[in-house]
């Protein structure tokens, strides 16, 4: 088994589980498939030696964000039947639109951005946490601080929403 094959298998699995996210009727299953997708994407990261990101991807997406989704599903008690059925027309239109989007994307990315086909050996250590950290705290220190402001903003937003919600109930 060569690496190429491994990558292709991984990619196929990723696409498959991503498809299942969209296809499965049951939202809880969607969540689980999405978690699987994230794991597979992390595996891809590892292949590209972005180790730190791989694990962070799991912690943040699979371990936190998707837990939140699951919470919401439990909170709202959404069963299979609660989703109204989309008409075939919309489905078709959606699929066609997706296909078009895909072509456009592929064309644009292929033409515009590719410089190297082969991975650069010097990138070998880019994914390591030391190097990332160095970048983060030197070059990107401003966005770093900004992101914490963003957090405060979303905290405020979430808390406000929940609070408002309480008033409605009372």
């Amino acid at each position, binding site marked *: 088994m060569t690496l190429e094959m491994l990558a292709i298998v991984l990619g196929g699995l990723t696409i498959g589980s991503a498809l299942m996210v969209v296809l499965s009727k049951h939202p809880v299953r969607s969540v689980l498939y999405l978690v699987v997708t994230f794991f597979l994407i992390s595996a891809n990261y590892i292949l590209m030696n972005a*180790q730190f990101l791989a694990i962070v991807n799991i912690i943040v997406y699979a371990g936190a964000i998707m837990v939140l989704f699951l919470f919401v599903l439990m909170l709202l008690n959404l069963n299979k039947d609660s989703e109204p059925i989309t008409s075939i027309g919309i489905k078709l239109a959606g699929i066609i639109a997706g296909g078009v989007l895909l072509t456009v994307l592929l064309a644009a990315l292929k033409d515009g951005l590719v410089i190297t086909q082969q991975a650069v050996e010097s990138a070998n250590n880019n994914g*390591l946490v030391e190097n990332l950290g160095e970048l983060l705290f030197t070059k990107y220190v401003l966005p770093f601080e900004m992101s914490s402001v963003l957090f405060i903003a979303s905290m405020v937003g979430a808390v406000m929403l929940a609070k408002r919600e309480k008033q409605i109930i009372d």
Partner: protein
Amino acid sequence: MDSGLIIEKLVLVAIIFSISLLIAMYATYFERKVAAWFQDRIGPDRAGPFGILQPLADGVKMFMKEDFIPSHSDKWLFILGPGISMFTSLITSAIIPWGEDLTIFGNTVALQVADFNIGILFIMGVLSVGIYGIMIGGWASNNKYSLFGAIRASSQMISYELAMGVSVITIVMMTGSLSLKDIVQDQHGMNWNIFYQPVCFIVFFVCALAETNRAPFDLPECESELIGGYHTEYSSMKLGFFLFAEYVSMFISSAIIAILFFGGYNFPGMDYFSGNALAILSIIAFFTKIFFFIFVFMWIRWTLPRFRFDQLMHLGWKSLIPIALINLLITGLVIALNKGWF
């Protein structure tokens, strides 16, 4: 990487696997015995001499029990729940360095399945995924107590994960590496982190109790309120997995506590040894520490009353997280002062 290495790792994995299963099995026995001793009782003593076959009997019983799936449940998710729980607690042991390198037939064998430089993060990642087992299991059971237990469990686990993360960061700051092997080597001899970071240790320890759902944080399955909590509907080995996973996690948590704060496989006076003697002694030292912490886990379980849910959340969010953060800042500042950055 050659096939020799793979075989070596395979054997190592097999050994570690059996050891952690064995230890978890006997942890159940030990727990029952310890509880009995604390309570001036005898504990299991009829299955085999001193009852040492008790875990076996339990295991056989569970295998032979009806594997029950309630009709309103989501069948696959119902099975998936305990599977995830067990699976996550089993794979954590991969990154634990069990001892100094061993030399067998001229080959140096690292007593660690996989050493990668983000070891601690791996643990955090597995931890955060472990929540799914309980959540899915509880949700799929379609039972109110299960759901309630599952929600309690996941709220509790995510709350304590934060404080745990922050206290881990403090240790990482002292070491400068996320690799467990580095952290252990950094504490060579008696240079244990506990001496520098007692507060951090307490926070971490409390969080470890909460993450493993051990008393006094065993609310999710607290039976006087929720019957069995998330595993109310589970029978046979699926229940066994949930219960077993707790013991495996307890074993792993003890190992990690030992690594982060008590020098892992280091022991005082280790410089006088070398080679395989050192390796074996280091393994022994490490397991002694692990057993000690397993014992402490049980000791606490049989001593303390349980928290109430709101108190538990308050403790996690309002005490532990601020304490951990402040501790982190102080650590940073002290090191900065030492280095003369100001």
